């Protein structure tokens, strides 16, 4: 790693970006590569420019700061949250942010933050961000959308458009007819986050959206199959059938 820290600023308010940029000029070891005014542009640019450090606002339209980290996944650089309001402090650290700055930012506070960044940078374990959505959303309402990144493109999939989810090795294929997306996540974790009245784990490898279920037919002695309104057929295990019966009662 070179001595220069390449930083990237994300904030939806131009004056806030300008203020932080101005403050950062006092630190010659920091080079501000670029800035972004929303989450979509941030994901794209961070993947292209690969900065060392991300100054990330939390409240932004459509994609907030936490969403940006989730979408970047293992490709996220070191993150410092910058926010006007400290209601998110705890969540920020759960999302493994290095530090947390309050706007307007004081020079001394920024200096202390950059000291911390320099210490930690370079020995950040790349796998440290696994399970980020789980930690973030556990205590909140069920997911109402799933974020997927395909290359640099971000997709927001409303859960009501998802017919079923399918485990594929370390990934989950999310079927939202007529499209499908691959997300790096465990099926079990998504099962926990989705609304359990709407989504049912019908099989070790499948979660079904009940809205899309047409009928259930016997298959063999021990198993059944679920026919979907889209014409797709999915296997239903014995345990899965038990869960399904409870939900459909």
């Amino acid at each position, binding site marked *: 790693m070179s001595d220069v820290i390449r930083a990237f600023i994300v904030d939806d308010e131009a004056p806030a970006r300008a*203020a932080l940029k101005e403050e950062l000029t006092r630190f010659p070891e920091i080079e501000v590569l670029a800035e972004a005014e929303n989450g979509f542009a941030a994901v794209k640019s961070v993947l292209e420019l690969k900065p060392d450090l991300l100054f990330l606002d939390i409240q932004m339209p459509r994609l907030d700061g936490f*969403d940006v980290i989730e979408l970047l996944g293992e490709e996220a650089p070191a993150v410092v949250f910058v926010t006007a309001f400290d209601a998110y402090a705890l969540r920020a650290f759960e999302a493994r942010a290095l530090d947390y700055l309050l706007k307007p930012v004081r020079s001394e506070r920024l200096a202390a933050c950059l000291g911390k960044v320099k210490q930690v940078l370079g020995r950040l374990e790349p796998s440290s961000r696994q399970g980020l959505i789980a930690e973030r959303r556990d205590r909140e309402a069920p997911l109402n959308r799933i974020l997927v990144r395909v290359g640099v493109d971000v997709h927001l999939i409303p859960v009501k458009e998802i017919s079923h989810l399918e485990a594929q090795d370390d990934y989950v294929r999310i079927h939202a007819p007529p499209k499908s997306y691959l997300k790096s996540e465990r099926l079990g974790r998504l099962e926990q986050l989705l609304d359990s009245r709407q989504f049912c784990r019908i099989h070790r490898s499948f979660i079904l959206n009940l809205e899309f279920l047409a009928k259930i037919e016997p298959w063999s002695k021990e198993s059944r199959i679920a026919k979907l309104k889209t014409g797709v057929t999915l296997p239903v295990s014995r345990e899965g059938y038990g869960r399904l019966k409870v939900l459909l009662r």
Partner: protein
Amino acid sequence: MNPLLRSPGNLLLAALVWSPLAAGMAGLGVGVGGLSWGPALLLLVPPMVAGFFLASSTFYVCRSEPLRLRRIGRLVLIHGAGGLFFALLFFILVFLTGTLLDLFFTQSWKQAVFRLTLVLLLAGLFIYLISILFHYLVLAVEEAGRSEREAMEERLAASRAELRALRDTVHPHFLFNSLTALEAFILSDPPRARLACLDLADFLRYTLRLGRQEWVAAADEREHAQAYLNIEKIRLGERLTFAWAVDAGVESFRLPALTLLPLIENAIKHGVAGRLDGGAITISLHCRGSGLCIEVSNPEPPADAATPPGGGHGLRTLTDRLALHYGREIRPRIVRSSGRVIVSLDLPASPEGKK
């Protein structure tokens, strides 16, 4: 519940008041009935005790027939009948006591009772009147206590809603983002920083006087909202555009302070700040009869927001505050049409007497 049964203290107090009455009754037995004191007490005290409990039941009559001048005829009728009934009942009680005493003591009890007939009937009527007076007094005291408590609760609810409005208006997120913008402009654009400073000062001054002045002119509300919009414009830049449509003559319309701002905050939060490309909001203040119609419209928020809109915390607080001034039927209504959300609020002319 009958006041006698509410506490042992009440019962004791009533018994203390009743004892001289019972003694007086016995005295009448001696004076008019020609009885000596012993028999007079024996004949008249038991019916007085029974009468005491019977009289306490007039509480229920009093409660169901409140004292109202326009119901005077009905009251006279009911209590006249009640009094006669009670007097008769009292007489019968004494008569029965006399009959009972006849079985044990050889004295002309019944004759004494008949000699006392008129006195007993008048006494019964008197007892009835005393007891309804007492019960009406108790009811009036209770009513006063209740309305005082209700008024206090109402005042409490009002101040809670006002506090909530104050806290919501000077939202930390708004305040600190504004200060951040201000800080940014101090070096890069001092004239703009100065204007922002003045807007912020105006905005805070108006907001902080909330609670001291409940009713304000529409012109003040508009000025306040304008200061707010100026600050938001600095933060959101090109993403926010807004337009006013104000009828001539609405400036002097009186409305509760901080009615307009929550509507505009709501529009910016959902229809501008939540959208990548921002949006245009329109604010209109129209005369409608003697009332004022406020309409604030904004573009639909994105359907895929992390937390879907509809919480409307600010609008709920506004509804609560309006309820204190006008009643529940005056509240913002939300209409969606052709990609826009319109929140409208129809206010009647201010009840000037309540100012």
